[in-house]
């Protein structure tokens, strides 16, 4: 999992949450994000705070339902276990999930290196 993959997963999660309101709603939201908030879809991962503010400007208290949906989908996509309480800071949680996902990938790489090392020891007749 690189930064690019994380960004793609986040965009997929945003698509999913917006699409839950209907395809036309999804298009309308992206249109107004660009026109009124100067925020392109592709920029969302690098401008999470702006995205959060725009969403809250439009939906006020209702934004939390979409944000929760985004986080649920994102965590599902990344295989990261994360439970947000009733009150959460979307920007902080996204940042935490990003760290968790990148850390998970790092651990996976390290464990794969161990596996490679073990195989080499065996095939090298005890030599490393």
């Amino acid at each position: 999992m690189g930064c690019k993959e994380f960004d793609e997963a986040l965009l997929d999660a945003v698509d999913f949450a917006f699409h839950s309101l209907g395809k036309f709603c999804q298009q309308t939201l992206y249109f107004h994000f660009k026109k009124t908030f100067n925020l392109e879809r592709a920029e969302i991962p690098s401008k999470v705070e702006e995205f959060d503010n725009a969403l809250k400007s439009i939906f006020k208290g209702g934004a939390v339902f979409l944000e929760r949906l985004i986080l649920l989908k994102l965590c599902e996509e990344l295989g990261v276990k994360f439970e947000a309480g009733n009150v959460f800071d979307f920007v902080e949680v996204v940042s935490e999930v990003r760290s968790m996902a990148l850390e998970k990938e790092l651990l996976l790489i390290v464990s794969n290196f161990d596996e490679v090392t073990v195989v080499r020891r065996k095939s090298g007749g005890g030599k490393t």
Partner: protein
Amino acid sequence: MKRKVSVLVIDDDAGIRKTLSKILEREGYLVETVGDGMQAIEASRERVFNVALIDIRLPDMDGIDLLDRLKKTEPKMVKIVITGYPSLSNAVEAVNKGADGYILKPFEAGGLLEMIKRRLKRQEESMKYGEEKVVEYIETRVRQIEIDRCKRRVR
């Protein structure tokens, strides 16, 4: 790509569960089956279903009570009650508790499928209406935001 319609079958009779699965899957529906009310509540918490087929007699709770609980948590889900013990009071109660349909056992596959299709069409129309309302809301909010920005600039 259009998402498949998912159906939750709740019946304690394994034979009925299997038969319904076959009939529905042949029609292209995604089917999940459970044997009692608690499993149904759990499944509906974890996944989204478009339709629930509820047997009126379940081992752990009354099908009508389950209908009532699902109505509160999944108001948009199409809920069809299936019963082998028809009575007028059961039918009236089911409708009062929000059932979208009432089917008697033994049932014909064609009749059940037709009922599901009709109810799904109604669900789709209601969703479309809801979507229009959300778009209307978004447009209104954005206009308001723009007006507020203009006012701030003038000050």
